[in-house]
């Protein structure tokens, strides 16, 4: 059993470790260290709590049993889950945090004495408000995360589900929660508390169903933020600094992260969060194709990260580079990559562009050394040993359909086997086809990242992100 002061100091320490954890995670170099800080913070928080409660009765055995059981389940999931299922996993985990917050609030409500909050039906008003808010937010997080999980897992359709009056209903439910809390404080009647939790479950569902699958990452981050606020609410109830600091930290960083992600996707935050509104005209046309085949939509920072960390990159220029006059920016990008120790080659397809030698003219203008420029026959075998193919404004000349479909108008044309690279980046403005008018199935491959933008603009942005 340790003194309240000492435990408060330790809670502060664990809060700071969490800050350092988030800070670490914001750059690849320090990220693993950040994670360790987080673990350390958590260990301190748990140990201090156990010590400060100071109840070493048989309960502690049960506690350990439950803790180990949970830990085992968590570890099992963490090791078994495939990397591609990350987003839904995070959503699933969130729901647990939300539910845990609800449980803690219920526990406090049922047995306020244990937390020094007064006695049942005579709970301190401030605490009552705090725990209701904590429980409500926790409940919203819980059901919201479940819906997000189902959508991402594909169990529920990813399409936004909207109906008229949606926003109105949400508003009404929100207000009713406030009213209920008010009466709860006034009367201390149990059923108000349960109603708050129930309605919050409902709100969680209603909030997330109108949001489309593509926006889920933002939603997850938003739910993350909610779980933080819930923890902070409980923290106020329990007068626990660790919960307050961490809750506020998670709450605000989650909110900011979702904002940043919206910006990265060129979506308005309000649109995403208000779901229904955004949903009708959201579906980011650029990223969608008629058949709704999914494409991976990246941005300049992703591209910069991938190429910077590659050991070899092959540049495949096409007519789009010429249209955008991106050759100078491209050259600059290559210079930067070389400084990062990346090996670069240019692969020129015989008919890239709209004139024989089109690419050569432009690359020479940008002073690309001739010995970095290779024709198809000389480079086609290299793709398999290359980390990244950077396809800039080229399309037909990479289309594997030329090898497979005798009916296609480009059948028989030799093509650059870019898809053999570990990753393929396509810079073009949309999913529309090239000169020959045939769709390019590479866009939908798993190892392809589409960078939708004008080639010059995108290349310049990538340059900015390579250091």
């Amino acid at each position, binding site marked *: 059993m340790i003194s309240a002061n000492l435990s408060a100091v330790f809670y502060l320490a664990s809060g700071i470790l969490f800050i350092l954890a988030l800070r670490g995670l914001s750059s*690849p170099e320090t990220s693993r260290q950040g994670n360790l800080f987080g673990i350390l913070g*958590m260990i301190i928080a*748990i140990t201090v709590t156990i010590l400060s409660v100071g109840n070493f009765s048989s309960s502690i055995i049960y506690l350990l049993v439950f803790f180990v059981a949970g830990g085992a389940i968590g570890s099992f999931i963490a090791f078994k889950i495939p990397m591609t299922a990350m987003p839904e*996993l995070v959503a699933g985990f969130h729901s647990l945090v939300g539910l845990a917050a609800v449980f803690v609030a219920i526990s406090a409500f049922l047995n306020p*004495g244990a937390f020094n909050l007064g006695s049942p039906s005579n709970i301190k008003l401030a605490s009552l408000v705090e725990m209701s808010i904590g429980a409500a937010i926790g409940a919203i997080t819980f059901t919201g995360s479940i819906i997000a999980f189902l959508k991402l897992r594909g169990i529920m359709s990813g399409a936004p589900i909207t109906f008229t009056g949606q926003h109105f209903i949400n508003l009404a439910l929100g207000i009713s929660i406030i009213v209920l809390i008010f009466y709860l404080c006034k009367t201390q009647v149990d059923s108000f508390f349960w109603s708050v939790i129930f309605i919050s479950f409902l709100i969680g569902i209603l909030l997330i169903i109108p949001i489309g699958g593509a926006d889920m990452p933002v939603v997850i981050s938003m739910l993350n933020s909610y779980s933080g606020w819930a923890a902070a609410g409980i923290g106020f109830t329990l007068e626990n600094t660790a919960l307050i600091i961490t809750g506020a930290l998670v709450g605000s960083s989650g909110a900011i992260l979702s904002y940043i992600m919206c910006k990265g996707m060129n979506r308005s935050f309000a649109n995403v969060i208000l779901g229904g509104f955004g949903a009708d005209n959201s579906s980011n046309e650029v990223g969608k194709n008629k058949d709704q085949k999914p494409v991976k939509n990246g941005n300049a920072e992703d591209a910069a990260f*991938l190429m910077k960390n590659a050991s070899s990159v092959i540049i495949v220029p096409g007519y789009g580079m010429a249209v955008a006059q991106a050759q100078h920016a491209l050259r600059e990008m290559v210079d930067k990559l070389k400084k990062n120790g990346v090996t670069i080659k240019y692969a020129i397809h015989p008919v890239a562009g709209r004139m024989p030698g089109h690419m050569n003219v432009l690359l020479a203008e940008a002073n690309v050394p001739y010995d970095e420029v290779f024709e198809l026959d000389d480079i086609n075998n290299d793709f398999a040993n290359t980390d990244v193919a950077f396809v800039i404004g080229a399309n037909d000349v990479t289309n594997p359909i030329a090898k497979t479909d005798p009916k296609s108008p480009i059948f028989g044309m030799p093509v650059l086997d870019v898809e053999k690279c570990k990753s393929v980046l396509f810079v073009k403005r949309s999913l529309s086809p090239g000169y020959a008018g045939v769709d390019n199935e590479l866009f939908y491959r798993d190892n392809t990242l589409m960078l939708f933008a004008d080639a010059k603009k995108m290349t310049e942005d990538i340059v900015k992100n390579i250091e």
Partner: protein
Amino acid sequence: MEIDPFIFRLSIFVLAIFVGYYVVWSVTPSLHTPLMSVTNAISSVIIVGAIIAALAGTSENIFETSKIFGFFAIILAAINIFGGFLVTQRMLQMYKKKKTKK
């Protein structure tokens, strides 16, 4: 003229919000997912509340309803703690710089 500790907590809360705000501003997009997952893991600090709920109080009877909720909360939070940090670790493994690089 003692100040109510609530005010202090409020100050701490507000300042922590600022820290949270700033700390992620400069994150690289490729780290969005790991960051999200570590934040998730951290948010299971709610286990602190769960532990109090499970242990605190005078009664030795662990089957009291409020304690049961506490124990359940502990399981949930523990899943999250282990799952969250481990998964983050796995993700970060992928970002290791290649050894071939100088």
